[in-house]
């Protein structure tokens, strides 16, 4: 393989890995928007909660209490973070979002997401303090080398888990009764209600799934992020950009946009400079808004989620 070819393959792999991390964060955002037409400003904090849950599950519980090896401990921590995300989503929906939705106000639930964000951030600050934690995945220590191309076992794990999660979510939405009902609510909430579908339950389910995805994303991002109560904030702006580029509420668009942004970032670092990453991504975002405001995948409400 020539130098240039090896470099292109390497940066493409780096980009796909980074893109998968972004997709995992952005999927929950787009799912909530697709069903509720609502932006969740607390999503970054669910990611951070997931990262902290994974950290404590892996470093304190799995290895020290259960005596599991590091690798098994980390895998278990991903499940714990996903579960914690789901439970937190369920609790916050029941305590905050559902009562506000019942009042029929569109604005209050949106503002409530900001309140939840501040609450979660400060609760984590009080619990864990501001000094960054060091969360190392045992998979990050293993480097796989094929010729001149390398990647860590962690990046392979991230790609595999992302693919599996996307596949599972797709299958759930396409082939299960609940998934079909959820799509019906996304298409037309009122008509779905007239057909006997319990909107409140399905909206709650959407928030739980999105929060679980955020928790899982936190577990995968934990070993990448500088883990502090503000960790999620560093990826959420990019995730919002991806959701807009992909087409707000459109899952396929979000996946394509996430991978695309990851690859663009990797090649921007190589040829333009890492200091220009945000510039390039947000120029792309603005170009999309001007040229194709519906996003990469044209918005067809019935096809979303």
């Amino acid at each position, binding site marked *: 393989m020539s130098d240039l070819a090896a*470099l292109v393959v390497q940066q493409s792999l*780096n980009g796909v890995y980074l893109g998968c991390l972004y997709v995992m964060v952005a999927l929950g955002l787009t799912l909530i928007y697709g069903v509720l037409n609502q932006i969740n400003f607390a999503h970054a904090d669910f990611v951070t909660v997931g990262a902290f849950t994974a950290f404590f599950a892996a470093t304190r519980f799995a290895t020290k209490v259960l005596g599991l090896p590091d690798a098994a401990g980390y895998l278990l921590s991903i499940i714990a973070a996903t579960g914690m995300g789901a439970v937190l989503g369920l609790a916050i929906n029941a305590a905050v979002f559902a009562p506000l939705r019942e009042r029929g106000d569109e604005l209050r639930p949106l503002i409530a997401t900001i309140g939840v964000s501040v609450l979660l951030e400060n609760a984590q600050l009080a619990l864990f303090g501001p000094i960054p934690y060091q969360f190392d995945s045992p998979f990050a220590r293993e480097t796989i080398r094929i010729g001149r191309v390398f990647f860590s076992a962690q990046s392979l794990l991230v790609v595999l888990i992302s693919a599996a999660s996307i596949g599972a979510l797709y299958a759930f939405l396409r082939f299960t009764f609940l998934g079909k009902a959820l799509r019906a609510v996304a298409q037309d909430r009122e008509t779905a209600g007239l057909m006997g579908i319990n909107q409140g339950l399905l909206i709650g389910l959407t928030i739980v799934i999105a929060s679980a995805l955020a928790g899982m994303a936190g577990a995968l991002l934990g070993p990448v992020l*500088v883990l502090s109560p503000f960790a999620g904030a560093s990826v959420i702006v990019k995730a919002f950009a991806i959701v807009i580029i992909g087409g707000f509420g459109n899952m396929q668009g979000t996946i394509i946009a996430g991978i695309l942004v990851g690859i663009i970032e990797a090649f921007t670092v190589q040829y333009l400079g890492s200091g220009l990453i945000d510039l390039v991504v947000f120029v792309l975002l603005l170009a999309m808004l001007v040229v194709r405001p519906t996003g990469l995948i044209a918005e067809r409400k019935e096809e979303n989620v």
Partner: protein
Amino acid sequence: MKFASKLALGCAIAVASFVSVAQDRVVRIGVAMPISGPGSYFGVMDKEGIELALEQLKSGVNGYKLQVQYEDSACSPLQATNAVKRMLDQFKPHIVIGEECSDASLAIAPILNDAKVVQLNVGSVTMKLTESGYKYTFRIFPNAEQQSAPLVKVARGVLKAQTAVILHEKTNAGNDNAEGFKKPFEAQGGKVLADIDFGRDVNDFTAIATRIASLGKVDVLPTFALEGQQVRLAQALAQAKIVKGGGGNAVQIGSIWLPYGFDQKAGEAAQGYVRIVQFDPSEKRKVVQDFVKAFKAKYGQDKVPTHINAHAYDAILLIAEAVRRGAHDSESIRDAFSKFKDVEVTTGRITFDAKGQTSDLSVVHFVQTQPDLSWKALSWQ
């Protein structure tokens, strides 16, 4: 009766005067530090250092109490500006310690100088802070030039480096440190293959490591970023087999930014990392060992103080020294600071130059991360 009234009145006046004098005999110290946001770990460590020093000085200095008020400046120019304005308005400090981040420190410097209140900086790097002609600004943290110059000396003189890739965060501090390395390194015949900057929101450094690997033979990688990013960067460079910690040949070299404990966080990727330190908890000077002992007694035996703890602790010691020499307000503190000569604190012997910058770097020395992740102090200066 008349006499008794007069006596009572006289006593009342005397008590009131005494109370008034007692209340006045206070030196008010404002502290503008990041308590929220990603830089809040600075604030936590600063507060630990300050609280320890205040505890040791609780009986007062020269008849004066040291009174401290903390404000959250969040490493942000806007929040720091608001915090300092609020402090000036309500607390009326004689001196303000802060900020840690260069951008925020630069934002508050003109405000404090206009108000003729001393600014004592303990953690910012940017040259502009003491190069802008502020008469009330003092700094005990080595500036970008003071930190970068020894790195160039070692890179060229000891490591015999011909090529370098500079890595730095895109801030006033990072830019100044990078510039401070680049110019003299090139002037001495070295070649900078790339000057790579990045935002504080960058988490994954694999693409940057890949780019560096494609640049050919790199001898040294001067790196200027906060600890969290440095850990990830070192790990990515090791994974790409660029640095010694990953089996490569390049040596990562760094500045005082990195606190004690970085090596354990970065793991084997940090092996061979060479950097300068201003505060070394293993240093034999009595003031250092007393500080380490007191710090552990207060915060736990397993807790080793970092340079951030030490700088904040020193700030209070320096103010106390000024008060001991008769200072009691902003003007007299400024005058006392200007006359300081080799005042010994944990991070060195403080003598401010005409611009308010600490000028004695005799305690700054190099350390190298060993295979067991401990420090080895090197004699390079």
